[in-house]
């Protein structure tokens, strides 16, 4: 099942890249995340983690591992919905 999901994911990914829509989506997502303050919050979170673990001992991998799930959870639902909507529309437009 996950194998199927993965192939589907990469197909969608390829399609979006080919139409050039992906870059626009990335931009949109970036803007929305900045607007909503997500970036600000994530930065603060990173600072916390770094301070808690000590800059000398912490590696990038650890930081990424720690932050990623929290960052995902923090994405506002409105942003999620908007991007999803965009992807749908882009795919529909392409198939037309």
């Amino acid at each position, binding site marked *: 099942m996950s194998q199927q999901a993965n192939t589907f994911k*990469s197909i969608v*990914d*390829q399609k979006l*890249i*080919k139409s*050039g829509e992906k*870059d*626009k989506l*990335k*931009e*949109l997502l970036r*803007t929305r995340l*900045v*607007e909503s*303050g997500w*970036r*600000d*919050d994530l930065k*603060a979170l990173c600072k916390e983690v770094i301070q808690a673990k000590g800059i000398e001992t912490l*590696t*990038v*991998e650890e930081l*990424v591992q720690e932050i990623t799930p929290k960052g995902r959870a923090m994405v506002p*639902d*409105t942003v*999620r*919905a*908007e991007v*999803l*909507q965009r992807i*749908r*529309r882009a795919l529909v*437009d392409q198939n037309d």
Partner: protein
Amino acid sequence: MSGLGLGAGLGMGAGIGTGTASSGVVGPSQKAKLPIAVSPYALFADSISNSISNSTGSSTLTNSTQRFGASCTCPHLALLKYDFNTDTNPNSDSTVPNASNPAAVALSRSATILLDRYRDLVRSLLGNCARGASFFTTLAVNVIVIGHFPLHVSTNANAEVDSSKKRKKLSQLEVDIGWVQAIPLPFCKICADTGLGRLHACLHCSFVGCFKHKHINAHLLDQNNPHFLAVDFHHAAIYCVKCKDYIWDLDFERILSGERVRMDALISKIKDSSVRRSKTVEWSPTLDEALKIQKFSVPLRHCSGLRGLSNMGSTLADVCYVVFIQCFMNVVLQTFIHNPLLRAHFLSDKHNQDLCPLKIAGKICMACEMDTLFTNFYSGEVIPFSPSNFLYATWMSNTALAHYAQQDAHEFFIAVLNEIHSNCASGSIGGKENTNCRCVIHQVFQGYLQSDVTCSQCRNVTTTKDPILDLSLNIKSSGPGVNSKKKSIGSGSTPNLTAATLNDTDFSCTLVDCLERNFAAETLTHYQCGNPGCAKSSESVKHVTIKNLPPVLSIQLKRFEHSGQGSKVDTHVRIPSELDMTPFTTHSVQARMEKNSSLVAAKSKPGVSGSIGSYDVLNDSVPEHRYSLFAVINHQGSLETGHYTAYVKSRGDWFLFDDHTVTLATQKEVLASKVYMCYYFSDGQHTI
């Protein structure tokens, strides 16, 4: 950027080093040729290596990092670069006694290869970004991407030969965008991920792997090969698997900044060949200068430049409106102090009050007052500063301001700009407007608006250009038309979107909405057409667009209505921290109109001919104009009485300035505040 920056702690973040961004066009081969004394970091490395000068020059890790610590943060790379093992570079033995000067030590051959590979990679990824950001002309992409697509990213050797053959043909043809997209995108060799997984390219071979699934790590940790460095495909940062961290190296950094400058030059050349780009002149201090810099430089303090402005109500208590005056002046001054371009101008001693002819003649010079202000803000004092002299100078030089009791921050802002301009532009005082004044104010704030009036009768277009120092936008009560776009985004199959959040977005209008309304086409009645063949007065359509955008964009939201009774518009306007002004430029509007007309001719799609700021309509060939927010002025209270506060961004953090108090703020607070004026600076590639 430079070793000096490292040693003295004057990073680019301070924005003081105005010229450092352009200093990076030195390749490894040139570097070796540099005379010993010229190397800016030699001095600092010198002092470090003096302490170990008695060492035998052995190949221990610690030794090499101590010696080259100033230019590289990774001991493994330093070891490779200067090759203490002396197996490939026979000269390194002779250079060891000379090691007090790292610049004199030649780079090892393997390091030179790495640097070359890095340059190739940077070129390809910059080209990739350019293609991705879709602001490139097709031609530009061809020159860059096809010209330099490196061998080790393209997996197929035949493809490379093909592209070099095609290059000749294509450069003559008007190339289709389809070809550009036919260039293979980099992808992970193992899981074929194309970018979501943070791609890294191995610096030693042609492997490309993703960070997400640790494929790049697996490659670098492979015992069969000695590879340990990889380049992030988005930020061009170098990752060392032995350090388990991203590393920094002066030589690589120079390549990166050099390539960025080159790319910029290329873009601007293709974009508009008539515009001459100023040549970047590399500067490195002579021994004398370097000594002086070392002697006089002080480490950058925390919170340097952050200082409250005290309310002088106590000293001028007899003047009843002083409190109000104070805060409107304070907020504007804070935005000046933290304006990166003004800061660079004054801190780099471009206006020296000891040499100012006006000051010497005993007259009042606002630019000198600004200079004093900057000196005081960066003096290290922490007690609130009283800008009494500045206030005095304003009163003396601008009588209108002195007598007008109900001052407004925006009026004050404009008045100060004009004063500084007239004090600075001593050579061209006569032509105040419409001339190419090169004073600091016009260099920083001036843009041009273009208005095209099209006569509906004879289609004759009258074009006028007006200089502007800032944009003033109307905030009308948001009618149904404003929110329709928001709703169309939210509606449809989005079950996650609750009614509450929808309402939330409905209530406020955004800055982009205001811009759209202000730059929308306007219909003029009773228009007297200038065309001699069409003398009738008739209807016409007026289009205002931005011809030239200023480096610092100041936007005022008209919250005060002076007509009749006078009232304050209290609508909350949501501002973005990053603003794209591209949709409002003349270039973009024209491109869009052409595209639209061709679309209508073919078959109009329902969704495409949408609103002005929509992402769909962004034309591919339009260059981007991206702005970042750095200061916001708020007004609380009513029209008659009220209080001004300012949020200002300083070295990545937001601060709230409320007269004499300065407190840390978050971006969320800033964006949620009731904005009266906001300041954006243009995001070049190298801005702070």
